[in-house]
C-alpha cells in the first residue's frame, strides 16, 4: 500500500469556493477511507471546480483528466504512440528500438509518478463507454499499474486523492460505485447562495443581491422549465445587471432584463413570458 500521510485538516473550502458542511464531510471521509470521491449534481453547481479547490486547500498538485466518449481507461494511465513509432521506423526518426520513447503517461500515471501528493480529477466519467469505470477499478484500488509494452510497473509514491464527476448520462456499474464515496451536490439554498455570490461579487449592493435572488429562485420554481438556471448563470446575470446599472427595486418590474444569461432554451423563454403576463412572477416574496 503506498505511503499516504493522513490529512489532519478538515476540508473547509477556500475563499473562492464555498462548500456546504455536508460536502466538506464527504471530502474528509473520502480522504480518510482512501476511496475515490464521486460527485454528482445539477450542472453549474461547481463539481469540476471542487478538485482544483481541494488541491489548492491542501497545497497538492492537480492532474486533470477530461473524459470523452472515445476515452479508454488505459488512456489515463499511459498511451503508446504506435503510429509515431511506425512512422519513425519507416522514415528513420528517433530510436525505434527504445520503446519508452513512445510511451506517454496519462493523468493518473503522472499523479502516481509525482514526488508530491496530487489530486486527480476524472471529469465527466459518464461520457465514456459503459465498461470504462470497471476497467479502472484495480488501478484505483491498488494505485499501481504495469506498462504492457515495456513491463515497467508504476506504483503511486503518494496515494493521490481521486475526485470523479458524473453528469448522470449513464449509470455507473455497481462494483465501481461500491468503492466510491458518493456525494450529490444539492442546489445551494438562499443562505449558501448569498455567500457564494459574495465571493464572486464582493462589493455588490445588498438590495440588488436580494432582488436578484428573489427573482432567481422564483424562476427556478417555474414549472416545466427545460433547463433551470444554475449558480454560474446567476453570477453572470448579476454581473450583467451591475454593468448596466439596474435599479434593484425595479428588477421584476422591468421584466427581468438580460433573461438570456439565465435561460438558455427558447421554450423556457416562452414559458416564463407566459407566467409574467399572468403576473405569477411579480413582487417580492413575502
Amino acid at each position, binding site marked *: 500500500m503506498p505511503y499516504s500521510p493522513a490529512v489532519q485538516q478538515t476540508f473547509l473550502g477556500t475563499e473562492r469556493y464555498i462548500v456546504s*458542511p*455536508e460536502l466538506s*464531510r*464527504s471530502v*474528509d*471521509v*473520502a480522504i*480518510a*477511507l482512501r*476511496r475515490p470521491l*464521486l460527485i*454528482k449534481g445539477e450542472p453549474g453547481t461547481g463539481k469540476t471546480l471542487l478538485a482544483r479547490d481541494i488541491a489548492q486547500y491542501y497545497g497538492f498538485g492537480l492532474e486533470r483528466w477530461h473524459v470523452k466518449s472515445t476515452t479508454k481507461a488505459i488512456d489515463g494511465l499511459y498511451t503508446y504512440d*504506435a*503510429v509515431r513509432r*511506425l512512422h519513425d*521506423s*519507416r522514415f528513420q526518426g528517433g530510436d525505434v528500438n527504445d520503446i519508452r520513447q513512445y510511451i506517454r503517461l496519462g493523468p493518473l500515471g503522472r499523479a502516481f509518478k509525482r514526488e508530491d501528493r496530487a489530486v486527480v480529477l476524472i471529469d465527466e466519467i459518464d461520457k465514456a463507454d459503459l465498461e470504462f469505470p470497471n476497467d479502472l477499478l484495480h488501478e484505483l484500488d491498488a494505485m499501481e499499474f504495469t506498462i504492457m509494452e515495456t513491463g515497467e510497473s508504476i506504483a503511486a509514491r503518494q496515494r493521490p486523492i481521486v475526485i470523479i464527476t458524473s453528469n*448522470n*448520462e*449513464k*449509470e455507473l456499474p*455497481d462494483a465501481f*460505485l*461500491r468503492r*466510491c*464515496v*458518493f*456525494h*450529490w451536490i*444539492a442546489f445551494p439554498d438562499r443562505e449558501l447562495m448569498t455567500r457564494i455570490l459574495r465571493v464572486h461579487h464582493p462589493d455588490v449592493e445588498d438590495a440588488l443581491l436580494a432582488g436578484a435572488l428573489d427573482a432567481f429562485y422564483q424562476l427556478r420554481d417555474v414549472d*416545466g422549465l*427545460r433547463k433551470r438556471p444554475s449558480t454560474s448563470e446567476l453570477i453572470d446575470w448579476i454581473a450583467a445587471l451591475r454593468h448596466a446599472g439596474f435599479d434593484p427595486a425595479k428588477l421584476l418590474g422591468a421584466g427581468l432584463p438580460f433573461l438570456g444569461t439565465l435561460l438558455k432554451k427558447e421554450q423556457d423563454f416562452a414559458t416564463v413570458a407566459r407566467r409574467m403576463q399572468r403576473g405569477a412572477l411579480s413582487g417580492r416574496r413575502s
Partner: protein
Amino acid sequence: MFLDFFYNLRGRGLKVTTHNWLALMEALGQGLHEQSLSGFYQVARCVLITNEAHYDEFDRAFAETFRGVKDVRADILDDLEAWLKDPKRLEYLDPELLAALKELDVDELRRQFFERLKEQKERHEGGNRWIGTGGTSPFGTGGKHPSGVRVGGGGGRSALAVADARRFRELRRDLVLDTRQIAAALRRLRKLSRDEGEPELDIDATIGATARNCGDLEIVMQPPRKNSVRLLLLLDVGGSMDPHAELVSRLFSAAHQAGNFRELRSYYFHNCVYGSVYEDAHFTQRVATEELLTTLDQKWFLVLVGDAYMHPGELMMSGGDWWMDGRGPTGLTWLARLADRFPRSAWINPEPEKLWTTGTIAEVAQVFPMFSLTLDGLGTMVRHLRRPPSPGRAARVARLAQTG
C-alpha cells in the same frame, strides 16, 4: 439500534452491502463524524449511498431509526452520545433502552435542545456554535430545531430535522423529471456495431499487417463504430392522453435528442392503432400500418406510448376504428401484428401502474409488455428491449395476429 439502521436501509431496498458497512465502521472508528449525530448522518450517507435517487429513502430510514420520541431518562441521550463516540464498543443498545428511545418524542427533543442552548450561553460565549457544530449533542449541527427556528447564523440543521425535511424527494427514481434524464435512459438502448459509414484507420490491424509485410506500410481500414439501433415510436394523442401531453412531449424530444439512433421514426395514432397511423399530431398525413409492417424489418425496436385506455369496442370490434368506413381487423389484431413483426417491442403507459390490471389496458398488456412513464419504468423497458423476446408471448402474439 445500529444494526437496525442497517436492516432498515436494506428493508427499503437500498443496496447497502457489508462492504459499505465496514467502511462506515472504519470511518466512525477514525472519528470522522466528530461525535455528533449530524456528522454521523453525513458520513453514513456518503459511504452507504451511491445514488442521489436513494437519498430520500435514506432520510426516511434515518428518521425512522433515530427518531426519539416521550419522557426520557436523561441517560438515553448520554448513551446515544457514548455510542457515537465509540461505535465499536456499543454495537447495540439493550432492548429496554431501545424501547425508551423509540418513545422519545420530538417535543422532548426540542425541550432538551433549548435547555442545552441556555446552558451553553451561560457557560461560554458563542455557545451557538457548540450546538451549531454538534460537539457531543444529539442535535448535531443543530442550527435549526425540528420545527424550524434558526439559532444563530451559519448553523446547519439537526440531523433528524434534516432527515425529516425530505429534501431529496424530487430526486427519486420513480418520478420522471426532465428530458435529459429520459434521454439518458434511452441512450442505454445503444448498440454499437461496425457495418457501414466512412472507413477509418484500424491502427492495431495496420501495425500487424505492416509487421507481417516486413515493415512496409500496409494500411487497414474499417468502418466506424456506430449505433445500429432503429427505433419506431408510435404515440397516442388526444382524448384521454391530454393530461399526459407534457410528459409525452418530453419523451418525444428526448428520443430525438438522445439521437444516435441510426434511424428514428415516429407516428401518431388515436387510442389504438388501426389501418393507418399519421405523421403529424393533427392526423393529416396518413401512412398505412401495412406499409410499416412490410417496409421495416424486425431489427427495428418498437415503442408505443399511450394509456391503452379506450372503449372496449375500439379494441375488440372488427372495424373498431370509429373514424373509418368499412370493416377490418380489430384494433387488437393490428397491435398483435405490430408486436409479431417487431419482436423487440414495448408499451409505455403514463397511467399509474395500479390501473393496469383492468379493462383494455390489461388486454393491451397481453400483447405488449407494459412499462410506466417514469425513469424506473424506462430503465426496465430498456433492459427488456435488450433481451430476446419471450417465446410464450411471441406465440400468443402470433396467434392473435392471425385472427380478425
